[in-house]
């Protein structure tokens, strides 16, 4: 049975429904939208924390879900998974905090510490990680914002090309070209180990 029909079955609990059905139901029963929050907020928070640090993450997550709640009437029910929609909204909000993101990378370059990372148990591992992550942070800092969005939605949010295209409202071909360009810059930075 197509997932989208589940919402019409009596007695089905919200937690079992796909995102599109939840969103559609939330138009009649707004409180249902909280299920979507509980489902996606933990990993969205992690993604935002990796990009902006912990201090702004909760604010961005709240703004993302509030904006999503207000826009839910326009949600395309043909997409059972709402992650591209949510990460697209979050990407816009992250884009408005470019300075915070740049400051995070710069702080990492200085200190070698991401403020939300759980330290590794081995000093040696930590040093190896740092040897890789420092050039990565420097390369991320230098990427164009649009390229960084695509790269990190794939690498950190684990969205597919098509999902990134949906999230950012750009053609899949543009996703591919931005990703290629960003990966080339990352590769060069790692090769140089700068």
């Amino acid at each position, binding site marked *: 049975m197509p997932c989208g029909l589940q919402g019409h079955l009596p007695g089905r609990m919200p937690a079992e429904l796909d995102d599109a059905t939840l969103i559609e139901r939330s138009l009649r029963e*707004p*409180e249902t*939208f*909280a299920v979507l*929050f*509980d489902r996606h*907020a*933990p*990993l969205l*928070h*992690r993604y935002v*924390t*990796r990009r902006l640090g912990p201090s702004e*993450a*909760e*604010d961005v*997550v*709240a*703004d993302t*879900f*509030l*904006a999503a*709640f*207000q*826009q*839910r*009437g*326009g*949600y*395309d029910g043909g997409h059972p998974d709402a992650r591209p929609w949510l990460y697209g*909204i979050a990407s*816009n*909000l992250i884009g*408005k905090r470019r300075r915070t993101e740049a400051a995070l990378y710069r702080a990492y370059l200085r200190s070698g510490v*991401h403020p*939300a*990372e*759980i*330290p*590794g148990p081995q000093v040696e591992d930590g040093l190896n*990680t740092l040897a*890789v*992550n420092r050039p*990565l*942070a420097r390369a991320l800092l230098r990427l164009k914002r649009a390229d960084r969005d695509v*790269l990190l939605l794939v*690498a*950190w949010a684990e969205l597919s090309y098509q999902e990134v295209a949906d999230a950012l*409202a750009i053609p899949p071909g543009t996703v591919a070209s931005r990703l290629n360009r960003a990966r080339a810059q*990352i590769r060069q930075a*790692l090769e140089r180990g700068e």
Partner: protein
Amino acid sequence: MDPLKAMWDTVPPAEPGDLAGARRRLLDGMRARPDAGTARRHGVTVPRPGAGTARRRVVTVPRLVVAAGVVAAAGVASAVVTPGTPAYAVGENPDGTITVTINELRDPEGLEADLGAVGVKADVTFLAPHTRCEGPRFASVDGAYDGPPFDSPEELRRAREGWRSAKATGPLSIRTIGIHPEHIEPDETLVLEFRDNQNPAVPWRLGAFLARAGAPVRPCTPVADAN
């Protein structure tokens, strides 16, 4: 493992305690406006408890364009519509742009058909004074319709420069808009919401947006609007 994927991957997913504040804000926002995804669209900011104490200023997108307010001052004489003037007119220009003149807010279906005849897939609504379409009616191609709020007017202005919705239409005079089809992708819908402004100098206001290709545009349900 891909070094980029591994970068900062020990950052843990949020625990419920990390999200308690965000969840509370969402629930408060949902209670404040349970009935719609309409709040931002009509100039109301995202509900933010505590706003005015420590929160940043938020600028929302103006949804209605005054038809050429600059021209209005000089063109008052032309504001009087003589009897027998057609309700609207659609003209194609040599440069590929399309000129639409609205004299009376009447026959939206006819205007849609005439725009379709010149290659513009349009959804036209004529609204009574102090009403708006309940929304959201569609998924927009950009932030002109349902995007996030902005921190400052400057940010809004910069964002507008990148919006195709803003480039696809523009006011030419108090009764006329220009449509620029080069900014409209195949199968996108140009959504035009005209509202009677009850003012001969500025007879109507317009909200012009682009709905995503293939995305449905719901019929307009007019609701009262304070503005």
